């Protein structure tokens, strides 16, 4: 009886302890297994991510290194499974490509959006990564302001050079995610057509006779006298035409009013307007009042100093086209004044500076000066900030140590004594495409639309 009692107590005690211990152990083992499974899943997913991102990087490099303009229909001839076969990575992950495209016709060019879908998976994990990339190919007459940096080297330049080497050797830094073009490309800087349109000349013949008629001078083939002229038609100020050099052109902005001060032969002239509104004021009372100004300034000569006054040169809605046939020298920062409320619009460059006189030599001699844009800031202590789209049918010269250009640069020759940093900003879409490539193909965007985890049962 005594023995039986002892055994009972011992059995109950041992069973209880064993139950508690085993429960705890089981729970801990289960928990450990869950934690391990979760960790393994995370590691596997992470490896797929790494492989996919690595592959996307190489995919982008391959696409950007391809001369896309050599294909007549790159969306079919290049973006297919022959050029981009499905692959198995070193970590035994499968990456499968599929291609589709949409054509979006524009006024002067066609945008083809190639949609590439990439599926990355491993045989051992239920997780799969699904990714989509948009590649926008522009083909046709592409506006020159859509390229961050376009150096149109002539055919006489004997040694072709790749873009990266050129940028490195010339201290040009491309901060945008678009590709630069350093090549010999057929481009159109149609000053002639631009002037015919800006001066509202009927027909295709541009001569002093037509220009004189527009500004009310007696018929003759002689140039008009030096001065500043307004071309007003149907209550719209189409353009300001300046015959002869300008010493200073000073931009400033206040309360959404754009101000431009011109100094010609030491005499100051001031004009004020609200972009896209019927408000214009200047020294000539005949063109003051409820007039819409189309923001075109044509200088047959050179502008020896383009500057900004106070903190900003332009109001946010300004879209000024300044055409100079001689030299344009920028001597200060040119920036947008404090933006105000147009949240629904992205930033566009406010000044399109076009410089050149090709096909106009018979008409404009640019004051006898070779066309070109020179950056020579008076303030040598700080970096120069320019928010300008520059199109120069000649040489672009930077004399500053540190130039930050927010906009775009098209030129035929470059002289750079400092560093040029280009951050691409588009210009407003022009109604008439006078400054564009002829027939060109360009990858305007490579965008990873998404990378998403997908789980299969």
């Amino acid at each position: 009886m005594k023995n039986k009692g002892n055994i009972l107590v011992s059995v109950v005690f041992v069973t209880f302890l064993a139950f508690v211990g085993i429960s705890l152990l089981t729970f801990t083992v289960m928990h450990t297994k869950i934690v391990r499974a979760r960790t393994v899943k995370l590691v596997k997913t992470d490896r797929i991510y790494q492989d996919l991102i690595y592959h996307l990087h190489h995919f982008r490099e391959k696409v950007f290194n391809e001369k896309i303009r050599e294909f007549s229909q790159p969306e079919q001839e290049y973006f297919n499974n022959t050029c981009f076969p499905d692959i198995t990575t070193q970590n035994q992950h499968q990456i499968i490509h599929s291609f589709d495209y949409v054509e979006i016709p524009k006024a002067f060019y066609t945008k083809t959006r190639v949609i590439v879908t990439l599926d990355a998976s491993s045989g051992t994990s239920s997780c799969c990564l699904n990714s989509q990339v948009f590649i926008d190919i522009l083909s046709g007459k592409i506006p020159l302001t859509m390229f961050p940096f376009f150096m149109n080297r002539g055919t006489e330049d004997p040694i072709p050079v790749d873009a990266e080497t050129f940028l490195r050797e010339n201290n040009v830094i491309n901060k945008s995610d678009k590709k630069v073009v350093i090549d010999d490309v057929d481009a159109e800087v149609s000053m002639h057509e631009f002037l015919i349109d800006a001066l509202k000349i009927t027909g295709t013949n541009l001569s002093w006779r037509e220009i004189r008629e527009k500004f009310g001078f007696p018929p003759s083939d002689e140039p008009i006298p030096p001065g500043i002229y307004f071309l007003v038609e149907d209550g719209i100020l189409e353009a300001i035409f300046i015959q002869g050099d300008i010493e200073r052109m000073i931009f400033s902005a206040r309360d959404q009013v754009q101000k431009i001060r011109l100094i010609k032969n030491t005499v100051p002239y001031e004009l004020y307007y609200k972009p896209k509104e019927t408000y214009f004021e200047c020294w000539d009372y005949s063109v003051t009042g409820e007039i819409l100004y189309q923001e075109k300034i044509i200088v047959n000569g050179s502008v020896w100093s383009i500057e900004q006054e106070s903190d900003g040169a332009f109001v946010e809605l300004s879209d000024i086209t300044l055409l100079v046939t001689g030299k344009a020298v920028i001597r200060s920062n040119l920036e947008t004044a404090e933006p105000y409320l147009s949240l629904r619009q992205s930033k566009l460059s406010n000044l399109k500076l076009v410089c050149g006189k090709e096909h106009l030599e018979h008409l404009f001699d640019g004051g006898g000066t070779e066309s070109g844009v020179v950056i020579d800031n008076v303030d040598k202590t700080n970096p120069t900030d320019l928010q300008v789209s520059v199109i120069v049918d000649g040489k672009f010269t930077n004399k500053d140590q540190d130039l930050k250009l927010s906009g775009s640069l098209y030129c035929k020759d470059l002289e750079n004594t400092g560093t040029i940093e280009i951050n691409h900003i588009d210009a407003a879409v022009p109604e008439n495409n006078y400054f564009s490539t002829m027939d060109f193909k360009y990858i305007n965007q490579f965008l990873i639309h998404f990378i998403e985890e997908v789980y299969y049962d």
Partner: protein
Amino acid sequence: MIKGFSILELIVALTIGLTILVFVISNVSESTGHTKRIIGSQERMESIFHTVEMIRSDLTKCGMRLLEPAKFLGFPLFVNSDYSFKVIYGMDTEMLIDDAAESATVITINRNDFFRKGKRIVIYDPDNRNYQINEIQAVDGDQLTLTAGLQDDYPKNSSVVVVKEVEYKHYAEQNTLKRKVNKGYFQPLIEEVTDFYVKFFPESCSVLYRIEVNKKEQIRGYIFMTNMVTR
């Protein structure tokens, strides 16, 4: 003849028995306490893992399908303070099948289950730099009726994205980290959170987070926002 226990034997047996009983009870209660603590700790770890996984998932998706219009959207895709953050991403994208004129309230897309009544959408045209945030009022096949008329013309092939907005916020007084989706209410995600910290590093597109639970367990790390990188 069976002889009974003497009083001395009984006292000794009782003493030994009671000693064993006290030992057993104390051990059992101690092991029960340990079990509770271990289970509690494991449950806490589970919920921390769950929270971190959810945060990782949302941060990884941040900006997804919205990077193209992000250039001209009037709001950021990631907003944070020390104790809260909000991410915005697209659930799915479709393209307009037909042109949609200004002031129109009906647009046509391919039928897609993500596009449901009450969902917020972003409609954008990258070439003309127009975008608009709107809400789906009704769905009829491939036609979506919007709560507000379009402010601009949207040509065929303009993109329409269903938007999801997720917000995390630490309620210090309640020691609770809560999560909110779209226009819903904040729902508790993890309790006993004694510290929560988030810092965004835009250069590397990553977020440093720190979660401290019950002033004991602390998890911290960097999460790379994969969908915020365009190049």
